C-alpha cells in the first residue's frame, strides 16, 4: 500500500510529493494531463521568492525532476474516483486501482468556459483561453476577448499589439479589472469595446470565423467577423468527482482550512482547488508542504 497518493501534478501536488518522499513516505502522484498544472503556460514568473526570473515550463520541469529524483512516482492516469474505506483509501483511474493510507487532492483549477456550442470543439482552431500562448497565431488578424476582469483587459492589450483589431466583449458596462488598463485600452485605435453584450454563438464551418453578440438592452444583434476568440472569464475548480467524498463550497472548492484537512480524516486538499483567498504559485507550494506533513502526521499516529 502506498502511503500518500496525490491527485494532480501541479505546483501543490509536486510540492507535496517532495515533502512526502523526504519524510520517508512512499508517494504516488496521479496526473491526467501534463505535469506542472496551470503554470506551464506562464511565459515569465517574477514573483516566486528566491527565483528572480524563470518560465512556467522551467519551473514546472524543475519541480517534476526534484520530486521524481527524490523518489516520488508520477503516473499519467486520470483519476475517476476516490473512496474512503476508513483505515485506507481506494483511488481508481482509467488504468487501475490503487490503495493508500492518505490522499491529497491537488486538482487545482482550470479556465472557465462560456459553454457556447463549438467552444470546446474549436479549441486550437480559433478558440483560446491563453492570449500569451496563442496570440502569435493571430498577427494581423481580427480577434475578440470575452471577459471583464484583469485577465481579459491584459489579454486585449497584449493582442492589440499583434492584431489588426480586437473586440473586447463584456456583459456589463463596468469592468472588474484595473481602471488604468481600461484607460490604456480606450486610447488604442484598434480596440473596440462591445459592452452590455450577450454572446449568442460562435460562427464558422470548421473553426472560428465570427461571433454573434446581442445588446442586453436593445436586443440588437451583431455579427463580428473574427478569426480568434479568447475566453478570459476566470478559473473554476475541478472537484466534481469528489462531491460525495468531501465537503465542497457552493463554488465547488474543497472546504479545508490552512491545515489542508478536509472533513474526512486522511484526506487533504492542497492548492487552488481548496477554499482560500489567495491563489498564487507560492501558496500552492505552501499548501503542498502543509498537506504532505499533515498526511505524514496522520500516518504516524
Amino acid at each position, binding site marked *: 500500500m502506498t502511503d500518500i497518493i496525490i491527485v494532480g501534478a501541479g505546483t501543490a501536488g509536486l510540492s507535496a510529493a517532495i515533502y512526502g518522499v523526504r519524510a520517508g513516505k512512499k508517494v504516488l502522484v496521479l496526473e491526467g494531463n501534463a505535469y506542472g498544472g496551470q503554470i506551464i503556460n506562464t*511565459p515569465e514568473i517574477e514573483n516566486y521568492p528566491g527565483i528572480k526570473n524563470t*518560465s512556467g515550463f522551467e519551473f514546472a*520541469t524543475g519541480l517534476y525532476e526534484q520530486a521524481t529524483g527524490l523518489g516520488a512516482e508520477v503516473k499519467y492516469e486520470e483519476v475517476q474516483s476516490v473512496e474512503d474505506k476508513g483505515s485506507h483509501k481506494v483511488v481508481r483511474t482509467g488504468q487501475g486501482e490503487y490503495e493508500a493510507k492518505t490522499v491529497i487532492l491537488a486538482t487545482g483549477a482550470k479556465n472557465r468556459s462560456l459553454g457556447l456550442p463549438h467552444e470546446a470543439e474549436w479549441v*486550437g*482552431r480559433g478558440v483560446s483561453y491563453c492570449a500569451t500562448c496563442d496570440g502569435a*497565431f493571430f498577427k494581423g488578424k481580427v480577434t475578440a476577448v470575452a471577459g471583464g476582469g484583469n485577465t481579459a483587459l491584459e489579454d486585449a492589450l497584449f493582442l492589440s499589439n499583434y492584431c489588426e483589431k480586437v473586440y473586447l466583449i463584456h456583459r456589463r458596462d463596468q469592468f472588474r479589472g484595473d481602471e488604468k488598463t481600461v484607460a490604456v485600452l480606450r486610447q488604442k485605435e484598434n480596440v473596440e469595446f462591445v459592452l452590455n453584450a450577450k454572446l449568442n454563438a460562435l460562427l464558422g464551418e*470548421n473553426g472560428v470565423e465570427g461571433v454573434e453578440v446581442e445588446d442586453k438592452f436593445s436586443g440588437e444583434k451583431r455579427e463580428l467577423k473574427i*478569426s480568434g476568440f479568447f475566453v478570459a472569464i476566470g478559473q473554476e475548480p475541478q472537484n466534481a468527482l469528489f462531491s460525495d467524498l468531501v465537503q465542497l463550497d457552493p463554488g465547488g472548492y474543497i472546504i479545508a482550512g490552512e491545515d489542508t484537512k478536509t472533513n474526512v480524516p486522511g484526506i487533504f486538499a492542497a492548492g487552488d482547488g481548496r477554499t482560500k483567498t489567495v491563489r498564487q504559485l507560492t501558496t500552492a507550494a505552501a499548501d503542498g508542504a502543509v498537506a504532505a506533513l499533515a498526511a505524514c502526521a496522520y500516518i504516524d499516529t
Partner: protein
Amino acid sequence: MEPITITSTNFEQEVMNSDVPVLVDIWASWCGPCKMLSPIVDEIAATADGFKVGKINADDEGELAEKFNVTSIPTLLVFKGGKIVNQSVGFIPKEKVLELLK
C-alpha cells in the same frame, strides 16, 4: 527513427503522398507544453511501426500551420491518405498520442 522535419518544400512528398499514416507535431521553441510533448513524440518516432512521425516548426512554417487552421500549439495531426483523420491540442500523455494513430 528521428522525426522528419516537415517544411512547405517536403510537405507534399512526406505527408500528403505518404503510403503510411503520418503523425505531425506542430510546435515552437517558446511554447512550454510543446517542450513537454516533444520527447514523447521523439519516443514514438523511435519505435514507429506502420506509420511515420514529422514535426513542423510553427514559427518557420507559419503558412503550413495556417493552412490547417492551427491556432494553438502543441497541435498533433494524424494524416491518412492526404487527409487529417485525427487531431489534438495541448499536451497529452503518450497513451493518448498512440490512440490518435489507431
